[in-house]
């Protein structure tokens, strides 16, 4: 097994022996099931657009709780010293934590496939927006995990890590609102940072490369900065 594989296995083992992952997943699916039922009975339309937006909000609230322990806990328990003095590249440590967190986040998202199946059985949904919605969620989840990892690498306090990640995600969410108050050219710069501005088109069926590029660029940037931060210790 490669060193990356060894690290991913260790991260998954840590994730699935901790109550945090199960608690967050349970809350996520419980709230989602509740809101799915309400939305379906009220709108009587066979689409998941509302669900995607609810998953978007729930992810912003809950992913920071999953990622807060990633590097902060290693630093607090001094196990980071063990990892970083073993013959292991920093990028492998970061990627292992990123991928292990993504497994859990995507696992939570996969729970919502049941709703798509229900719509498929009892209605005639347009599958295009459903596929693009899941693409939007996958990219959204990876960006949140990457930001959470970056913040978790900066502190050994897990609560601080969660709060900061939530704060950054909320600021990105509301960036478009802030943009209207700024003069050119800052307004367009800040507008382009808007999380919801890049999520909404995909969640409603319109896939633009610029939106995909936004999520990928910011995710890679956050992972790069996390690796640099570990290397510059």
């Amino acid at each position, binding site marked *: *097994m490669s*060193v990356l594989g*060894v*690290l991913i296995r*260790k991260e998954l*083992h*840590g994730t699935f*022996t*901790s109550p945090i992952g199960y608690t967050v997943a349970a809350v996520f699916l419980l709230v989602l099931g509740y809101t799915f039922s309400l939305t379906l009975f009220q709108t009587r339309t066979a689409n998941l657009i509302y669900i995607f937006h609810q998953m978007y909000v729930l992810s912003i609230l809950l992913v920071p709780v999953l990622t807060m322990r990633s590097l902060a806990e290693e630093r607090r*328990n*001094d*196990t980071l*010293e*063990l*990892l*970083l*003095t*073993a*013959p*292991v*590249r920093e990028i492998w440590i970061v990627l292992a934590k990123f991928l292990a967190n993504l497994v859990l986040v995507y696992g939570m998202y996969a729970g919502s496939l049941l709703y798509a199946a229900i719509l498929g059985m009892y209605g005639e949904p347009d599958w295009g927006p459903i596929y693009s919605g899941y693409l939007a969620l996958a990219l959204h989840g990876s960006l949140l995990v990457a930001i959470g990892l970056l913040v978790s690498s900066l502190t050994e306090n897990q609560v601080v890590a969660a709060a900061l990640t939530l704060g950054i995600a909320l600021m990105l969410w509301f960036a478009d609102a802030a943009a209207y108050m700024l003069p050119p050219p800052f307004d367009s710069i800040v507008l382009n940072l808007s999380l919801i501005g890049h999520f909404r088109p995909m969640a409603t069926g319109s896939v633009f490369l610029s939106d995909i590029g936004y999520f990928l660029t910011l995710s890679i940037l956050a992972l790069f900065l996390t690796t640099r931060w570990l290397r*510059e*210790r």
Partner: protein
Amino acid sequence: MTAEAAVIARGLGKRYGATRALDDVSLDIRRGEVFCLLGPNGSGKTTFLRILAGYLAPSEGSISLSGHDVVRESLAARACLGYVPEAVPIYSHMRVREFLRFMGRLRGLQGPALEDAIARVVERLALQAVLDRPSRALSRGYRQRVAIAQALLHDPEVVILDEPTNGLDPRQIVEARLLIRALAGRHTVIMSSHILGEVEKTADRVAVFLGGRLRGVRETGGPEGLEPWFMSLA
């Protein structure tokens, strides 16, 4: 002496803003010896060991381990060492056997070679009784032993022990001393301590650190002991 040196430091320094944690340290550590860094808390011992282990980057100077520059050839240097930090960190969600397997795999051991290595260190550190016990349930003495075991899995040339007798009871201190002495020869052991008597009984040579500076290096032993020499430096 340089040809025999396991560690060569030249003009090594570490700054945190305006604070100098380590200042212009130059020394050679011979292969196979037990070398001890002696000094009070905050004297720069741990900073030196962390730089040597590749955990911290030096602000100035150079340091090599087994012929590999610790900064430029970091992975090669780290492959040659086993490191036990002062806090003896162990993953609490793992059992001892799982922890040793994980650390062995990180160092490239697999299959029968890994299991053989685990059996070797378990026997050497007398860990049979706790091998399947959760790490979080270990006593301080056993934690120390498990931490040393992971550092020896890949039979490294250099073993770094930061304050290895901290928190141990008198019996465990004696056992730790005997273990360190047994490691000498096959391994170069670099340890830190702030207990003069312990250093005298364990190390072949000792370096005194004060205020981030290296104040002197000498052999242990001799009729007068280390105390007068240490007091003259302090």
